[in-house]
């Protein structure tokens, strides 16, 4: 057998698997509503606001409900103590490079 025949067969198999992957994803999406029904019912009845992904601290368990500075809540640029905090981007403001506003007595 020519090496190119073997190679093309291998790529055809990989392409078929790739198409199968897309079809599988499409199929799971089609049945997702049914699969999600239990979760949706709980979210609706209890009024849940967050996903249960990181349970180590209150501000990682409920990031949408956490204090304004969470996950860096001790002070705005404080590093988080937990590895999952690395998934959350630090707040934009106040920036450490922002100019310090003059004291009220020094204002014109």
């Amino acid at each position, binding site marked *: 057998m020519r090496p190119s025949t073997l190679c093309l067969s*291998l790529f055809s198999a990989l392409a078929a698997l790739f198409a199968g992957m897309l079809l599988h994803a499409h199929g799971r999406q089609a049945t997702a509503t049914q699969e999600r029904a239990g979760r949706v019912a*709980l979210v609706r009845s209890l009024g849940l606001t967050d996903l249960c992904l990181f349970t180590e601290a209150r501000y990682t368990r409920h990031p949408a409900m956490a*204090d304004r500075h969470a996950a860096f809540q001790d002070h705005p640029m404080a590093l988080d103590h937990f590895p999952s905090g690395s998934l959350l*981007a630090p707040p934009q403001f106040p920036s450490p490079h922002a100019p310090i506003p003059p004291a009220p007595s020094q204002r014109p």
Partner: protein
Amino acid sequence: MRPSLQRHRSVLDFALSSLLRRKGRNLALTAVYTLVVFVLASLVFFVQALKHEAGELLEHAPDMVVQRMVAGRHDPMPASQVDAIREIRGVEEAEARLWGYYYDPVYGGNLTVMASPDPTLLPGSARIGRGVARNMRVAEGDMVPLRGYDGLPLLFTIQQVLAEESELVASDLVLLTPADVRTLFHLPEGLATDLAVKAGNPRELATIAAKIVEKFPDARPILKAEMLRTYEAAFDWRGGLMVVVLSSAILSFIIFAWDKATGLSAEERKEIGILKSIGWESGDVLLLKFWEGAVVSLAAFLGGVLLAYGHVFFFSATLFEHALKGWSVLFPRFRLIPALDAYQLTVLFFLTVLPYTAATLVPCWRAAMADPDSAMRS
């Protein structure tokens, strides 16, 4: 077969035999390349699926949650505020939510204790999430002790363990009756943790929020759009972990491609020289190198993407578990629903396959332009 196709097949045959001559090197190269694609694709699939799931689920979350802030911190809300908010025009429904956190000193896990409005939940009973049942090693009918505010244990009978498919939202939940939650946390009647508001017309939400803040300056309304944005931001491309993994992977890939692009081995130069001296055109040499690059990069791309899909959607992203788990004692087990994005797959393809193929062509083009005699002598 058409002559042009026949020509391509012959060149592919030659390219494959050339790759097989340096079997060890090319296999190692393909393995590293596949690994880079696998890590990038796993991350893209995982983040995309989580973002999609968060969007789908939080679509059913309350339109707005109103908290009371005292000294910059969330504080229980008096019933008088709840009633006043209910009176605001445009508010269709306002439910006081009663919930809190409970640290279990035995297992070291943080639980979310919540009052359930379900009347079938009996006093002294609890519905618990799968994660809680797994950690505490309890089942339906067992008793669980929770330490009350005064340090005394309160015993609850497990009425139900929540279904497995609810783990993504309820793995750490302990649902009790409102009276039991008040007893456990010593929350007096007339106080609620926060308020879930439903607006008749969602477009009026901003106006309702403004009216709430005007009436109660210590209130903090959190709109559903903000909850969704929190997850968008957490799993965004700009997110911390994404940036770290993506930048290091892309950087290592650029170094790898640059190394390929900056030069050919003496053996490869000699090979090109010989091919040209026996009558190969520069175009033929470039076609040969294009096929070599395409075989390696396509195999790595398809293999890496397929492995990533299996890793994320069949094996629940086991390799990311430690990073996600962090310090959590209680970790949900969930199977994500794939949310493949054609745009991201295309970006991944262009980020991986094209640079490599281009990187292999440039030095070959230089060598193919050189005089065959000098190429063989070098």
